[in-house]
């Protein structure tokens, strides 16, 4: 195969000019702010470069994506079809509600996937953090380093290794089960086992983040609170319930919200571990949208799918921000 040079000269110029463009704008605005006195000029000078980059590279494609959602794609041409895509998706046209390709089925799978993962991440992460913060525990530095390893492994590698681990013929999991006399399981041929394989993989790679967040938050809880509670005769459970948990909340809540948004759109794990098997049933919304676009060439339909994903997340974060604000109010 003829291999053209991957990076042409003009390309290199562009590669380095792209980050430089905001810099230039930054300098111009900086100079302007020095010449004219305005209370907010300095602030804008600092914010503009990042905002500009975001506007060009996120808002423009976002706007285009939004526009695409109202079109149909055929042989490279887009025609405006109004709300047709949305109607088709929301009416689950062509698929029964319980069919793996129906929007509602996939939404259900996605919510289950997100909830289960985040709960496991938070529970395991917090549990380990509570054990590891014991001041007299030896070797805790070693444990901590070992336990953050999954976070450092690129997640597509994690996904592919676990896919191998769950392989029916040679996978380690079936080998282990064989030791206790269980017949080899075809993990990806049934919904629940395939789903379990995905969740296992994602739990493995996600708990260290929560552990680190919880460890940091625990450090900021003053020790004397526990001493006072000891003096008052509070049990360990009471101390956990009434001191640790309320004081952890402000730090854990944002991490949990962010974590659930990330998990909701966790493409790599689903796409690479189960690959949607069996019959696309374990696909989550984002993978489904990807398939409509890049496997079926139905860009408009896929864009509408993506818009719906975004709306679901927006509603979720609206809900949780109210929740976290009320938590802040309660615990100051």
């Amino acid at each position, binding site marked *: 195969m003829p291999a053209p*040079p991957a990076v042409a000269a003009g390309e290199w110029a562009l590669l380095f000019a792209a980050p430089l463009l905001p810099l230039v704008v930054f300098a111009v605005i900086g100079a302007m702010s020095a010449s004219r006195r305005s209370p907010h000029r300095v*602030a804008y000078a600092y914010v503009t470069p990042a905002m500009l980059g975001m506007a060009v590279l996120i808002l423009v494609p976002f706007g285009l994506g939004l526009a695409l959602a109202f079109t149909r794609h055929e042989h490279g041409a887009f025609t405006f079809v109004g709300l047709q895509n949305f109607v088709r998706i929301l009416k689950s046209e062509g698929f029964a509600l319980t069919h793996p390709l129906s929007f509602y089925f996939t939404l259900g799978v996605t919510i289950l996937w997100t909830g289960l993962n985040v709960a496991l991440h938070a529970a395991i992460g917090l549990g380990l953090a509570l054990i590891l913060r014991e001041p007299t525990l030896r070797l805790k530095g070693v444990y901590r380093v070992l336990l953050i390893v999954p976070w450092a492994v690129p997640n597509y590698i994690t996904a592919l290794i676990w896919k191998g681990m769950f392989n029916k013929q040679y996978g380690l999991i079936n080998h282990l089960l064989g030791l206790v006399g269980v017949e080899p399981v075809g993990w990806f041929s049934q919904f629940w086992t395939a789903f379990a394989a995905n969740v296992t993989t994602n739990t493995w790679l996600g708990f260290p983040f929560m552990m680190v967040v919880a460890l940091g938050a625990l450090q900021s809880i003053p020790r004397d609170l526990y001493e006072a509670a000891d003096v008052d005769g509070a049990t360990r459970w009471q101390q956990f319930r009434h001191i640790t948990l309320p004081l952890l909340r402000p730090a854990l809540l944002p991490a949990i919200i962010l974590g659930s948004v990330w998990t909701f759109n966790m493409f790599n794990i689903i796409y690479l571990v189960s690959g949607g098997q069996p019959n696309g049933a374990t696909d989550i919304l984002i993978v489904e949208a990807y398939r409509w676009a890049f496997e079926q060439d139905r860009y408009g339909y896929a864009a509408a799918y993506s818009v719906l994903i975004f709306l679901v997340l927006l509603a979720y974060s609206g809900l949780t921000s109210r929740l976290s604000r009320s938590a802040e109010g309660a615990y100051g």
Partner: protein
Amino acid sequence: MSAPHAGDPKPPVRWGTHFFLATFAVATLFPVLWVVKMAFRPEQTFATGLNPLPTQLSLQNFRDLFAAPHFWQQMMNSVVVAAVTTAAGVFLACTAAYAFSRFRFPGRRAGLMAFLVTQMFPGTMMMIPLYHVLDQLGLLDHLAGLVLVYSTTAIPFCVFQLKGYFDTIPRDLEESALMDGASQFTIFWRIILPLSRPAIAVTALFSFMTAWNEYILAATFMSDEAAYTLPVQLQQYVGDYTTEWGHFAAGALLVSAPVMALFFLLQRHLVGGLTAGGVKG
């Protein structure tokens, strides 16, 4: 089980804790050890058995990788994309986070909200237009396209991260510097940035990881093997019908090594840095 006590808990309790932690750590490391084992085994099958420790020390897989047609080119692609993304992401995030932390200006709340909302944009929604935009610009199969996309995905998280840390730096320092006649920029450059080194390091690590580990955009935008980044090439080894586990494992090790090294170097800062962002973010 959580509250710290002055006296040592009884020995049985402690042994239980160590047993639990050690078991958990071994279980956690198992898949990683598996990769190491397969990387140093001259075969392409998935290793079977229960022993996670390497039984052979062959460098054949690594030799094969290095001899593959585009390996070094792909390595360079990954390095360049990750380096430029990190530099651009961290610089832009630092200035923006400083403004969000220190100034009250019209649009501040809206700006912060906008950054948060971008975290919710589904990748596919961006992918389709980006694919067409890059296609129009002739940037498919070009690294510049990837750098542009990665920097902007990295920035919002970096901004939150750094803003949280800047918020914890006492203002007295800046006020006295202002008294001494220092300019706003001097304060940012000479006081804030040096004090924030740990947080900047952590932020840089996340930016680097965003680009270094990204797989699906690269796989979608790059069709020419010479333009692949390493993740795309590695995924090729694990096909649906044939899987070259040995080559994949060796490559996985090479790709993970730098990230692991950075993680261990920065892990002390990780705890403090993340929490500052979490509490105030």
